[in-house]
């Protein structure tokens, strides 16, 4: 099964999300920055889902989604923004960049898994 790509500058968030998804049977790949995520996809990683933070040092989440949408392995992959950001304008920007959904931290694990299973058929 293809892995879920998690992108966040917080090690705690990466660990938390990995634990939840692995417990539900998903494989996970993590990246601490947007640049690292792009590098992984360039290196051959083909995730079934991307979950990214919005505010990160360097490339932020919306830019990352825009770049990933132009890369073949992730062109049609669902992408979620998981963030503390609450401004509607930012939400709209993410949607315009090609995000599939918007999750506000802290996200309930059960709700997260429901969304993931909805977006990844056969998961």
């Amino acid at each position, binding site marked *: 099964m293809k892995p879920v790509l998690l992108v*966040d500058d*917080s*090690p*705690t*968030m990466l*660990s*938390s999300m990995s*634990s*939840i998804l692995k*417990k539900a049977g998903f494989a996970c790949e993590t990246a601490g920055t947007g640049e690292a995520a792009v590098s992984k996809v360039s290196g051959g990683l083909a995730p079934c889902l991307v979950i990214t933070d*919005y*505010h990160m040092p360097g490339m932020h989440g919306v830019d990352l989604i825009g770049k990933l949408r132009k890369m073949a392995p992730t062109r049609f992959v669902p992408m979620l923004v998981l*963030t*503390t*950001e*609450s*401004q*509607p304008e930012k*939400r709209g920007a993410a*949607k315009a960049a090609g*995000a*599939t*959904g*918007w*999750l*506000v*931290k*802290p*996200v*309930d*694990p*059960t*709700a*997260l898994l429901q*969304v993931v299973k*909805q*977006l990844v058929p056969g998961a």
Partner: protein
Amino acid sequence: MIVVAATKSVIPVPDDGVPAERLGAGPMLPATDKRTAVKVLVVAGLAAGAVMVELCLRRVLPDGLSALASLMAFGSGMTATWILAKPQQAGYTSVERVSRLDRAAVELAEFGAVYNSSVPSTEMDHRDGRDNVVAFPAGRSTPEVERAVQELDQYSAFTDILDRQMKSVTDLSEEAAGAILANLTGVDGKVSALLSFIKKSGSSDQVTDVISEIETHTKGCHDLLDRFAARQKDDAQESRRQRSQLGTDTRSVLEALDGVNRIARQTTMLSLNVSIEAARAGEAGRGFSVIAVEIRKMASEVQSISNDVHSRVEALMQTVTVDLDLQTQHREEAEHEAIAQIASTLSALTDNLMTLVAHQRDILQKVESENEAIAKPLMDMMGSIQFQDIIRQQLEQLSRMATQVGEHLAAISAMLGPNNTDMGGEMLSEKLDQLFNTYVMAGQRETHMAARGQAVSQDTAARIELF
């Protein structure tokens, strides 16, 4: 905790013709009361800096950093008290310098205004009588301003400590969150492995196999018993047949003996006839008479022996028949009893095994339900660790705010210092507006608006939205 604080409401309205735009939205001091501005500046600067820091810390920081803020506030209050207790000295004469003091006073008073609007009324009541710090005598001197500048310059050290302490809290909480997650993952792994083992060892397929095997063995035992019983029945019939054959043979022997007996009687009759004929023959028949006597004796002995053998055979047949019947009966009864007991034991064993299997199924169902009961809280705890990232972002925001406070106080200090550096046209209220735009969380905005006395708009956006 806060000893003194300045508010905009207690600063006099300007009457010296200084344009209001120059000072932003804040009030100005009258030219005749410039010395009062010095006192406002000193007291409000020290106190407002401390309360601003406290405002930043009062919601999220642990006791250690709150204590630091308290210490800063205490130091500010003590400093202000010391300055106010000094005797009055000669005042300023430069209008321009006093104008800068006006600006500094307004900027510093802004801190107090922000703080006061965020403090609950009960705390305000508690501090009642200490807020109107502007209403003290005029006529502060340059040394006091220099002292104020020195005090303001010390804030960089405080903000630096504050920044480091908050980074330390972030690192510690991140480390602790990582350790908690690692432990949770470990516990989850062990519980999952244990439950998986239990489930696997007692899976429905395995239980079905066990039941099927038990039923096969039980059926085999019952078949064996049935075959054994059938064979015992055949044996009993064979035994009865043999007994019957024995009786028949015995009766044949007895009939043969009866024949011998009859011949013996006929021989006796014949010998009597010979004796009669020998007597009739006289002397010539004497020899025949002796022979006839001997033959009669022999026939009598044969008859006697025949009767004896008949009696013995009859008695033997009786004995054998009765004993065999009894033995056969006892054996059949014992065998029936044993077979019944074995069958009963087998049934009981089967029932016990079925009960055991049913019990095992109950245990498996319980294990599966407990598995779900354990798994969900574990997963919820894994999700709850996200609070650390939220706290981290809030602490980083506070750190940026503390840096801004330090920079602003440094600008005020520079403006009051010997070089009279202009701090620019940006008012603190504008900085606060800029600060508002840097917030990412709805809670941060709500807290800010509440502190500024603005109507708080609740965040109603969905926490999860699929586009």
